[in-house]
């Protein structure tokens, strides 16, 4: 039985790692800069990759055509495909623009087409920005916001939970009362209250870390409760008493006996909390409280869909939301498998956490 869970853990972890590597390599994988606007091509549909041309000939190298706007300039754009000029796809394209990192040599992109052709594989938004590029760069923000915020939540929660559980008496009372206050707020409201604490406009860079801290702070309470529970039961084990009898310091006991017990809880929490933190970042960005323009995030890419016209006609704008589904599926799978893994024999009954009890999400 343990076998299956190990496989699931590896599968989920590797898939997630590759997604993260993909977005980290956005500079390479994305054909365009995320802020690059093409004002003459707002809300363009995704371009079709052709392998067979109109005469039925097979081309090894797929090509794209151009979209021509047939509507008038005042109304919504209506695009029709114009294949008079074809742009074959090129790989490992050298970047022509004035990149500041020109000192390192011109950057390369995985794919592109010769100028003045354009390749928008996932369409464009209202400013004509390539959605594929924004998806990849936005992934950096959203996915890593989730990871870093979770690190903060769990770190803080584990430390406070350990202190509360191990030392008992007044630190326990104080920490648990504060945790109760944090948990009394529905999580979005807590998030908003904390977010209101920051300035309204957040660009990339340092403010991004402030945003992460806010999301992280919103989520420390439940992990700390769980960790405290584990520490309380571990503290009363006889082998801890025995170690004390040998003159062990608190640091030794925490490190050698208690820490391994909480690892299981912490890791399983991590998998659930990461998806929760990504969701928090998405929600904030969607509502305009996350990173400001033009920095892309999977949340603010969805913000344009609040207009009915866009929602009805531009289905490709949903891509950032759709990209979240496999990511969340993988994280949930990982959480399930980790939970089952840590139900190993040898762990006391109290140490076992079911995924239901851990459903932190709320």
């Amino acid at each position, binding site marked *: 039985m343990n076998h299956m869970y190990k496989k699931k853990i590896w599968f989920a972890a590797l898939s997630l790692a590759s997604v993260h590597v993909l977005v980290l390599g956005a500079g390479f994988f994305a054909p365009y800069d995320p802020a690059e606007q093409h004002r003459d091509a707002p809300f363009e549909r995704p371009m079709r990759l052709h392998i067979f041309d109109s005469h039925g000939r097979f081309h090894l190298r797929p090509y794209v055509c151009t979209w021509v706007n047939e509507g008038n300039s005042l109304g919504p754009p209506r695009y029709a495909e114009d294949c008079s000029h074809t742009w074959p796809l090129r790989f490992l394209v050298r970047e022509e623009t004035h990149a500041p990192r020109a000192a390192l040599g011109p950057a390369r992109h995985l794919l592109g087409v010769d100028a003045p052709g354009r390749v928008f594989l996932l369409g464009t938004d209202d400013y004509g920005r390539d959605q594929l590029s924004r998806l990849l760069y936005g992934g950096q923000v959203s996915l890593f916001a989730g990871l870093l915020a979770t690190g903060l939540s769990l770190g803080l929660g584990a430390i406070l939970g350990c202190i509360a559980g191990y030392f008992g*008496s007044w630190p326990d009372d104080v920490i648990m009362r504060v945790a109760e206050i944090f948990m009394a707020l529905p999580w979005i409201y807590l998030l908003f209250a904390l977010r209101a604490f920051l300035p309204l406009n957040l660009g990339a860079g340092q403010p991004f870390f402030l945003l992460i801290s806010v999301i992280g702070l919103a989520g420390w309470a439940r992990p700390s409760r769980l960790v405290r529970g584990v520490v309380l039961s571990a503290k009363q084990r006889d082998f801890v*008493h025995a*170690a004390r*009898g040998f003159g062990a310091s608190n640091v030794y006991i925490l490190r050698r006996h208690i820490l391994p017990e909480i690892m299981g809880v912490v890791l399983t929490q991590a998998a659930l909390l990461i998806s929760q933190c990504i969701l928090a970042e998405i929600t904030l960005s969607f509502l305009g409280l996350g990173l400001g323009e033009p920095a892309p995030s999977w949340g603010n890419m969805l913000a344009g869909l609040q207009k009915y016209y866009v929602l009805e006609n531009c289905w490709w704008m949903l891509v950032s939301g759709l990209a979240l589904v496999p990511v969340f599926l993988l994280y949930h799978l990982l959480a399930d498998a980790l939970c089952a893994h840590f139900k190993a024999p*040898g762990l006391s009954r109290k140490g076992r956490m079911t995924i239901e009890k851990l459903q932190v999400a709320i």
Partner: protein
Amino acid sequence: MSAALTMRTDLSPTDEPQVLLRALALCKGYARGRTFGRNRPSIEVLRAVDLKIRAGSTLALIGPSGSGKSTLGRCLACLERPDSGEILFAGKGLVSLTPRELIPFRRQIQLIFQEPAAALNPRFTAVEVVSEPLLISGRGTKKERKERAIDLMALVGLPAHLGDRSPFELSGGQRRRLVVARALALEPKLLILDEALAGLDLSTRAQISNLLLELQKVCSLTYLFISHDADMVAHFADEVAVLHEGEIVTLGPPRLPVCSRSPHTDQSPAVTAAFSRLSGLSRQ
């Protein structure tokens, strides 16, 4: 035997055995829950307990469940502080010491827990378990600790190849031996054995009790043997104390034959004679 373990020769048989541990008027109560940091009125577990254990001897502490035997054991092992009273170990008062000052004394008094499975961390290997006290007190290099651990295991009758196993992979009797080995690592003077023979089948029980008796001679240990079963301690102990509802009721040499539980019953001379023969045999 390893050279590190020496036989104590400074106590010659003709010396009057000194009192190693003395408890005076120990009281201990437990609070029932906390309301906003203040303790609610407590349940008294120990009431003015007086005890005295002579060096090299075995004192048995018997009593029904709930009489406070384990609590007394833990207080004497300095795992808990009594509410009032004094504990004198080799003449030195322990109750008023700070935790830091208490450390060297705690090392000389070791408690062997009731449930060996609970007293061993399942994530450790057997060698790690036994060498843990040495690690904590910072003695020796890793290699030296491992060697000493294997020696200690040999002393209690555990073969070296069990060293890499987790306690979960050992049998009940082997686990008990492991707990004893760990307790001996720092060369304690007093071992408090809390129900050390409970839950074992007869043959294992005989083996462990023989082991304990042997160790007592070799390492010059003093035992406080806690049990709820008077028969078990009969051939083991030099003196028996009975604890009832937190107070010592009787204290004296064991007079129990195998058929009686109460120390007050009279027994027939034939039974006594048979019993002495049995005890004489088992002590060899």
